[in-house]
């Protein structure tokens, strides 16, 4: 177990030694500090901490994309750099190597989340205050924001896993990233074609169940045919399926060229 952590440590080094990782984290930190500061400078002090974080949430696609970028690089860059050969001839099975990479990628998702929401929350609290303490609207607002953050992280987990799996299957970080972004945009097109309201199968589509924020408005979701627990189950199945495919292909692959 200790030794496996060393593999994760290796993968962490590969992520954090690169300048671009710090540029991505830097952008998030600048936003997390800048947006509450801007609001405070505009004299929006009465918005309170939750109002500030609420506005920051408009940018919540950024930590997700950045996390997907690193996930897309994780396996693919070993192939494009040719370093995969020297990595796989160590006394570690391919599954363990892949697992160490996935764990490092998940830790990065955690890092971008902390950099964005954590710092955003802290700066908002310091600059904008608590609003009207203990009042009912503030409590409801706070609960909504927390749920939003958690839902964003669930989406982030899915997109990161998709990018990671495509990266492991196709060995191209460009393709992994492009497909992940296309997935995101194609989602609405596919769901309008196979509308869950018309076709029973529609409600099992990945995109119908992502963006869990849909359940803050209505317990039956955007299409009125799903529920939070249903969506979580569907997402869990997709999550496992993506990882299974990635592991299967990675384990079987002939590493040549």
């Amino acid at each position, binding site marked *: 177990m200790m*030794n496996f952590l*060393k*593999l994760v*440590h*290796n993968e962490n*080094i*590969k992520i954090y*030694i*690169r300048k671009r990782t710090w540029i991505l984290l830097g952008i998030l930190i600048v936003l997390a500090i800048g947006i509450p500061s801007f609001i405070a400078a505009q004299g929006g002090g009465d918005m309170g901490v939750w109002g500030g974080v609420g506005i920051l949430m408009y940018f919540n696609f950024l930590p997700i994309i950045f996390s997907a970028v690193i996930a897309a690089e994780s396996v693919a860059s070993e192939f494009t*750099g*040719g*370093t995969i*050969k*020297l990595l*796989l*001839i*160590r*006394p*570690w*099975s391919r599954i363990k190597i892949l697992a160490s990479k996935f764990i490092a990628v998940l830790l990065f998702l955690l890092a971008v989340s902390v950099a964005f929401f954590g710092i955003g929350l802290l700066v908002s609290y310091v600059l904008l205050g608590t609003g009207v303490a203990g009042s009912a609207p503030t409590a409801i607002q706070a609960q909504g924001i927390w749920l939003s953050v958690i839902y964003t992280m669930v989406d982030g987990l899915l997109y990161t896993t998709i990018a990671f799996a495509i990266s492991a299957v196709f060995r191209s970080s460009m393709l992994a990233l492009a497909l992940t972004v296309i997935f995101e945009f194609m989602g609405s097109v596919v769901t309008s074609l196979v509308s869950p309201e018309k076709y029973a199968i529609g409600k099992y589509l990945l995109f119908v169940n992502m963006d869990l924020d849909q359940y803050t408005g209505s317990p039956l979701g955007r299409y009125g045919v799903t529920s939070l627990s249903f969506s979580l189950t569907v997402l869990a199945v997709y999550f496992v399926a993506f990882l299974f495919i990635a592991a299967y292909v990675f384990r*079987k692959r*002939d*590493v*040549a060229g």
Partner: protein
Amino acid sequence: MNQTDAKSSAGPVVRFREVSKIIGGKTLVDNLTLDVQPGEVFGFLGPNGAGKTTTIRMLVGLISMSTGDIQICGKSITTDFENAIESVGAIVENPELYSYMSGYGNLMQYARMRSNVSKERIDEVVAFVGLTERIQDKVRTYSLGMRQRLGVAQAILHRPKLLILDEPTNGLDPQGIRELRDYLRALAHKEGTAVFVSSHLLTEMELMCDRVAIIQNGKLIEVQKVQGDTGEGTEKTEVEVEFEVGDAAIAVQKLGAGEAKGGHLVIRIEHSDIAKINARLVEAGIPVSGIRVLKRSLEDQFLEVTGGVKS
């Protein structure tokens, strides 16, 4: 269990058994059966595209075998990968390392994946490959020769029982090649490591290896001892002989055979015919001031078995 362990440690380090690799109907490696013993430098020689790298890839488990099995220290690379690869250090094709890390950072990556590599061992290996001065620099700034040496360093870090080097002298200068050759021979003969080296450079293999396997079109053509073997076994009676004569061109003309090379007559004849040819030359009025049997180089043998044409 103990019995098989004892057996395997005494036996060959590598056992290829009827190994084939077929991709898309094309046979890249064809029914290869071969043993590599501890303490020998084993050369794997063949023209480009002969299947050398494919074989090495199967040996280290990077690609699967279509048929057959490879055992390293008695453990199958297919069914017992982690234990089989434990004994292996390798460079496969070019040593591609993390260019954005320092040489030291790269070695640390591989050291962390083993339990038996100390900091002292890393320093020792770095000093051995002559990278001490530059080891903290990014690999991006390294020359091809330095990368090759870093590649060697990662391969020997954990003192493997089997060292596999794919075209190891690529990018090395003559001095570096010589050092590597001396090191590999010392490693094999003093520490009992089995060294498996592939190359398409014949003369290099002659100097480096104890035995050489010649492979062409995926097939094993021949396995030969190299060092201390004059190549004049009873079955190979045909030898190349050089006669020192006054005028080689006239000698060739009178004899109706052989060729003039560097002012000497060089002719390929059976060993027992040397005296006869000498007599014929003298009869023809051509004084012979010296006769030398040219040792058949591995190159001649290589070209012979692979049917290549000497340029």
